[in-house]
């Protein structure tokens, strides 16, 4: 029964063009991340001062950077750092923001109001601005950037969880659970959290793309990943410096950032569609059956006149 349903959901996921393409894209990104920074040979990380800031050639597909490292291989090699930092930042945001939002939503009226006001307050800062302030407090570097983006994304997830949990709080099954005499902790964990988990997971996945871009933005400002570590944002900064010598040094990381952002966002959307039967495409639409017949009839009527 439920297997058939899951299979159905999986098919819906795969059958849509964006679902299929983004799944392939995410697969490619995963492989690149697994190969990691050392998996693409020394050309990606060891500098070659004889050939700095060259344009594309047979040796270097997209040219080299100011220290003579291969742009193409280096861009691929940066995947792991970029993805892992984005993933950790989102994980932080989902866990802390989820707790913040759900604890606020299940609390007594005063806590609920206070928590909601706090969420509103934090949301009024922009993501990146909040992240920069936090980096100013805890210091720059990869770890700092991850925490900063995690905290900056937190209010969004807190708001999201708050509204999901508020909906669950009015459900009869919660009353039934209380009538069974279950403890508050059990009800929170098994009734509230369980029922909001799928929405939160999908929302989290969708925002990994945003986190990749936010990480890149911080690195671009020189606040994120510091050398010798490197990610796409840092490569983009370095690439812009030699834009007139080798255009690809800036374009390659920029393209990959865009690609990752789009792919992961589409993948998240497809995932959301697959877990929610209401969004499956076999629902009534305005352009089939009766209405279409009606329109055809009208058209014929018009022709006869």
């Amino acid at each position: 029964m439920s297997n058939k349903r899951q299979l159905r959901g999986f098919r819906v996921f795969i059958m849509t063009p964006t679902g299929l393409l983004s799944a392939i894209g995410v697969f490619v990104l995963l492989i690149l991340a697994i190969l990691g920074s050392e998996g693409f040979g020394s050309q990606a990380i060891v500098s070659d001062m004889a050939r700095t800031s060259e344009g594309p050639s047979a040796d270097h597909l997209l040219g080299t950077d100011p220290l003579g490292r291969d742009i193409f291989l280096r861009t691929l090699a940066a995947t792991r750092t970029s993805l892992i930092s984005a993933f950790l930042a989102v994980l932080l945001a989902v866990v802390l923001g989820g707790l913040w939002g759900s604890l606020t939503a299940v609390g007594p009226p005063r806590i609920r109001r206070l928590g909601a006001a706090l969420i509103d307050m934090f949301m009024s800062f922009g993501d990146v601005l909040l992240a920069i302030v936090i980096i100013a407090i805890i210091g720059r570097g990869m770890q700092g950037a991850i925490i900063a983006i995690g905290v900056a994304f937190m209010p969004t997830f807190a708001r999201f969880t708050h509204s999901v949990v508020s909906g669950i709080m009015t459900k009869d099954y919660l009353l039934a659970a209380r009538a069974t005499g279950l403890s508050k902790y059990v009800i929170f964990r098994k009734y509230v959290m369980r029922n909001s988990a799928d929405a939160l997971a999908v929302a989290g996945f969708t925002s990994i793309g945003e986190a990749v871009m936010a990480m890149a933005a911080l690195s671009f400002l020189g606040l994120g990943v510091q050398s010798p570590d490197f990610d796409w944002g840092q490569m983009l900064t370095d690439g812009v410096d030699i834009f007139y010598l080798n255009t690809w040094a800036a374009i390659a990381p920029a393209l990959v950032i865009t690609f990752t952002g789009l792919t992961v966002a589409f993948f998240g959307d497809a995932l959301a569609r697959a877990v929610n039967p209401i969004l499956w495409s076999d629902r009534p639409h305005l352009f089939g059956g009766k209405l279409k017949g009606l329109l055809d009839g009208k058209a014929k009527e018009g022709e006869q006149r």
Partner: protein
Amino acid sequence: MKTVESPVLEVRNLHIGTAGGISLVRNIDFEVGRGEIVGIVGESGSGKSLLTLAVSQLLPRNVVARADVLKFLGTPLEPNAPSDLTGSLLGTDLAMVFQDPMASLNPARKIGSQMVEAIRFHKKIPKRLAFSKAEAALSQVQIQDSSRVMKQYPHELSGGMRQRVMIAMAILLEPQLIIADEPTTALDVRVQAQVMSLLRELNRELKSAILLISHDIALLSEVCDRILVMQQGELIETFVISDLFARSHEPYTEALIGAIPTFDSDPEKPLGVLDDED
């Protein structure tokens, strides 16, 4: 009124009102004896559900209840501040069946694990034993394929099946009192009859008392020993079921009885309706 020896539930002079001082339910006196089925009937807004929520301590935050006596199995209940003691009474000796079976099961978890959770929370028994108990309870409510239902999610079951699961959950811990708040309102007539006869049978087998809430006096008259009539927050009449047609009642009760269609009713004439002036 019939006096009952050591009642399961004893309520004397119960008042329920909002925190702002608006009176919702007044002067309620009744008791439920062991193994008795008591029905509470009344129109929407007459305070039936508030009464049950006060007994099961699930009143909303902004509603306050006070009573001279509110005893369950001899233990005084605190309707506004559930204590640990009453927390353990809930779910073991007092069980509830809710109105909408579609909404009262946790949609994210399988039937089996939900049922087992309730037992294991109150009694520390091995998981396997709890599972077999849950399965037995399911077959007791006439679910044929109980081992399969245990592995299903609530959305895979029909409304009648879900209400049976709710009843099975209620009887799992062999409670002294089952409160059923309009358990059949969301179900069609045939399933209604099944659920009602099921409650009656369980009452006979398990000797649990049942407090049955409904706006349908015909439905109640089929299963109840006694019926309490509520109107606008007050208990206006109590009668034993054999008296339903035997003696005259309050005008409101007469009107409720008059609204039951029978095979002799004249199809041309409209059924009796309630006059608000009563």
